[in-house]
């Protein structure tokens, strides 16, 4: 089983590397954020597999945390790229 876990981790790391290339190339803002989103998901998977490989299932708390926190990071980056600040924008935004 440990070989299967190792292969899974290697595949996840390879996917991370591909996402990293896209994050660094990314012609538009959104490409980079998409790569960040994917990277976060891959981290959750990587941490879960590490937990199983090292037989320390309490590592899953960490994966759970990343699954929740990744979303906050993405919302923050998206808001920043859209408005450039974090103050209230509802009045300016109008009916968009």
């Amino acid at each position: 089983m440990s070989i299967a876990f190792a292969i899974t981790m290697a595949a996840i790391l390879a996917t991370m590397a591909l996402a990293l290339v896209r994050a660094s190339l990314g012609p538009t803002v959104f490409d980079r954020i998409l790569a960040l989103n994917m990277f976060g998901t891959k981290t959750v998977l990587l941490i879960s597999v590490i937990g199983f490989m090292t037989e320390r299932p309490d590592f899953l708390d960490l994966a759970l945390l990343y699954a929740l926190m990744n979303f906050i990071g993405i919302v923050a980056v998206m808001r920043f790229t859209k408005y450039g600040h974090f103050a209230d924008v509802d009045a300016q935004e109008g009916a968009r």
Partner: protein
Amino acid sequence: MHDAAIHAIVILLLGLLLGTAIVIVRMRELWAAVMLTGIYSFLGASWMLLLDAPDVAFTEAAVGAGISTFLMLSTLALTNRRAKPQPGLSPVPLVVVILTGATLIYGTFDMPHYGDPDAPAHRHMAPEFLADEVKHIQDAEHPEGKPVKVDVGNIITSVLASYRGYDTLGETVVIFTAGIGVLLLLRGEPREDPSEDASEEPSEDAP
């Protein structure tokens, strides 16, 4: 086989960390650099996990993914979004960095091997901490003279909160002071509450 696989994964992870660092350095768009530090923190936490340090990884995960991205972005919102291009590249910083790095790596040769049971860190205080941890399992056999000190499942928590209570108190005061400092700096001038008159403000302030 198991150890070899973990070593290979660690090396791959470190390679990715290096790649991320290079990409961050080359990035001119500052918000993208901030986003990439988030990626760096993802990788760092995974690596700390492989070194069997879940508490450190947990802190990295809690701070690195959400809060620090947000804080750095809000700093950018108050300053500037793009880095100034450097006019000329001087080789001096590179030489300094390479020399410092080489010295540090040379210094690690004297350090005990990872996981070495004879390392000073494992012989000085750690046995005492660990002994207190196991004590409650075989409590009935123990002679009465030995006081049970800390009896909390996670060793890190007991060390941080109890044995090194003064230290942690100091850290809490540091966070408190830092928070007060940021509030004093950023609340410099009294502003109108934007929640009340947000509907009027943009029309007046808009250029």
